């Protein structure tokens, strides 16, 4: 896929936003520049030569598993760790040698790190008092901030008298009160239960838009990254594997790692047998048929590639569909009913399992597919992606 195609695609989906996002404008000055940053712990490379530009008002998510280096990168930005090499530039200022307490950056900790001996209001006021802000102003700004996170009535409580969701909001208020240029959030919703997490996600976006602060969020939860982010940087082994808008990361993963890490995916290994400018034909033993994809790739002839198809992009039917390409036969091996949708495990003749999800259109259980039924699986040729790495 060419970059112009990509651009076209992303601009069309964010068409409701009046202007073109900064990261698509040529020559736009990034707000946070990470230049070739490497961090070694002894022999172990936690962050491996990362370069990344983040623009003003972005809500950038670093997504990765544990040990991927995402938290280390965040701690380097906050100043708790110093990079072994490379530069961090925030709003045009090089952060080298600037201590955490002097950086225009605040952090919301995963554990919230609320001071247990201070009241909610004193926790929020902590940063302002260190700046020597006048008493009256501190009081006023704290009240304002507590109102914003809907904790106006709880200022006198101690952190251990609050619920998890309330603590999370105190931590947010505390990290925002100094009006930082850059807010770092380490797994901000990780400690909340599912329902609360969903509500808080939108609250967080609203606050970010209202205050116009640039957010960098670290998370291992792909759903969280999808809903929150303007852009996602997927990290693995200290490297950013892909940086793109959420839908691009999901629909056009650039590697097997990203495809498998973000959402679930079916992969078919195969060899390219025909490589035309706008389509490829792949012979795949795993699929048992030849596969067609309607975008070109750049690869060596006879290279082994993987075709990736998301479970929800696959159609499942009892009767043989009309299309002749990208159509395979199998037997339903297992069904998981999940309420809004059902997940099917379909076994192909050669033993490969394919995962298919179908919305539960109808209520009647009898009309649905059942165990050991013979079915056809098919998908459009523009639904799949060919991955060379």
């Amino acid at each position: 896929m060419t970059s112009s195609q990509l651009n076209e695609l992303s601009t069309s989906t964010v068409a409701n936003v009046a202007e073109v996002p900064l990261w698509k404008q040529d020559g736009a000055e990034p707000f946070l520049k990470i230049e070739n940053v490497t961090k070694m712990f002894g022999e172990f490379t936690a962050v491996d030569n990362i370069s990344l530009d983040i623009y003003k008002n972005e809500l950038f998510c670093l997504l990765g598993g544990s040990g991927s280096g995402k938290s280390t990168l965040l701690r380097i930005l906050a100043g708790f760790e110093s990079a072994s090499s490379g530069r961090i530039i925030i709003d045009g200022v090089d952060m080298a040698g600037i201590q955490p307490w002097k950086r225009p950056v605040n952090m919301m900790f995963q554990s919230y790190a609320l001071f247990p001996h201070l009241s909610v209001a004193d926790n929020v006021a902590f940063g302002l008092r260190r700046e020597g802000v006048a008493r009256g102003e501190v009081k006023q700004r704290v009240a304002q901030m507590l109102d914003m996170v809907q904790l106006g009535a709880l200022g006198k409580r101690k952190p251990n008298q609050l619920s998890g969701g309330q603590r999370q909001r105190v931590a947010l208020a505390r990290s925002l009160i100094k009006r930082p240029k850059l807010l770092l959030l380490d797994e901000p919703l990780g400690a909340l239960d599912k329902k609360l997490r969903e509500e808080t996600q939108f609250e967080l976006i609203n606050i970010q838009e209202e205050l116009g602060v640039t957010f960098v969020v670290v998370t291992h939860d792909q759903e969280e990254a999808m809903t929150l982010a303007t852009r996602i940087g997927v990290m693995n082994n200290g490297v950013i594997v892909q940086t793109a808008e959420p839908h691009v990361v999901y629909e056009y993963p650039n590697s097997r790692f990203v495809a498998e890490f973000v959402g679930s995916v079916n992969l078919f290994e195969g060899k390219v047998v025909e490589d035309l400018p706008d389509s490829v034909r792949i012979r795949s033993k795993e699929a048992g048929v030849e596969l067609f994809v309607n975008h070109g790739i750049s690869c060596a002839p006879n290279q082994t590639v993987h075709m990736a198809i998301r479970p929800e992009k696959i159609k499942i039917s009892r009767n043989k569909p009309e299309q002749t390409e990208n159509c395979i036969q199998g037997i339903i091996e297992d069904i998981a009913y999940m309420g809004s949708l059902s997940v099917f495990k379909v076994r192909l003749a050669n033993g490969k399992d394919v995962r298919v999800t179908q919305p539960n259109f109808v209520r009647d259980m009898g009309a649905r597919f059942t165990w050991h039924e013979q079915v056809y699986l098919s998908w459009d040729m523009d639904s799949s992606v060919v991955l060379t790495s």
Partner: protein
Amino acid sequence: MGHGQQCGFDLMSIPSGSAWIDKSASGMARYNLFRGVNWGRLGVIAVPGLWLGIFFFIPFLVVFKISLSESAIAVPPYSAMLEWDLEEAYATFKLNFGNYIYLFEDTFYLDAYISSVKIASVSTLITLIVGFPIAYLIARSKPSMRVVLLSLVILPFWTSFLLRVYAWMGFLKKNGIVNEFLLSTGIIDQPLIMLQTDFAVYIGIVYTYLPFMILPLYTALEKMDLTLLEAAEDLGSRPYQSFFLVTLPLAVPGIIAGCLLVFIPAVGEFVIPSLLGGSDTLMIGRVLWDEFFLNRDWPMASAVAIVMLVVLVLPVMLIRNAQGKEEVHS
């Protein structure tokens, strides 16, 4: 202790399902009788309870009673409170408040109480100042190192207290090691008089009770979440500010516990002032000892003990209780 209190010995009384079906009515009645009094549980409560009642609680009543009698040349050396005159069928009941009146009239005793509190408080404060850096260093060192350092702190505690105090005598005497060292280096040209002064008593108390200060401090510092310090720095406070704003307030429970653990035994200390202190080092434990062993005035010694109990021990107990309750609340 919130839940699961029915554990252990209470379970004796829970019948198995078949027992309910098989047993006759009288059997069930017997069972219920057994249920009413749970012997195992009662025994476990009663044995230590009785022991403490007899050997810890009643003795105080005895002390109180004897503090109200008069010293006498007899065996035991005090007058009986109740005297029967069988011929006249006449009983005399004598209460002697003289000991207490004397306690408050003679400034010697008052001075001794005040001086005990002063010496104990000052040495508690010094112990805190000496102990804090050590506890802090141990809490912030690598876990493998912590075990070694903690054992080093505790080790002296397992050796005889008396002998450790004695070791300081050799250190502080006129021709002791400290003086020899200072003389040979030329820092002083006259030996310092250190033994048999209040200074030596302070050193002895700090030395003896240092582990009692370090351990609770260490516990408080060790369980502190270090991201709190990062949060403080992130919000603009320098390391020394973070120490006063975060570390110190969070160590307060440890500080209070440590101070109580040092102050309580120090205030009634006898061995340290009598070995290291001078004849003018007034401490109430020593006064009580002398009253008992030298003057053989048991009633007076008892009165000193009762006042000590009311003035020094009770307040400390109340502070401890209040602290315990606060911890339960938070």
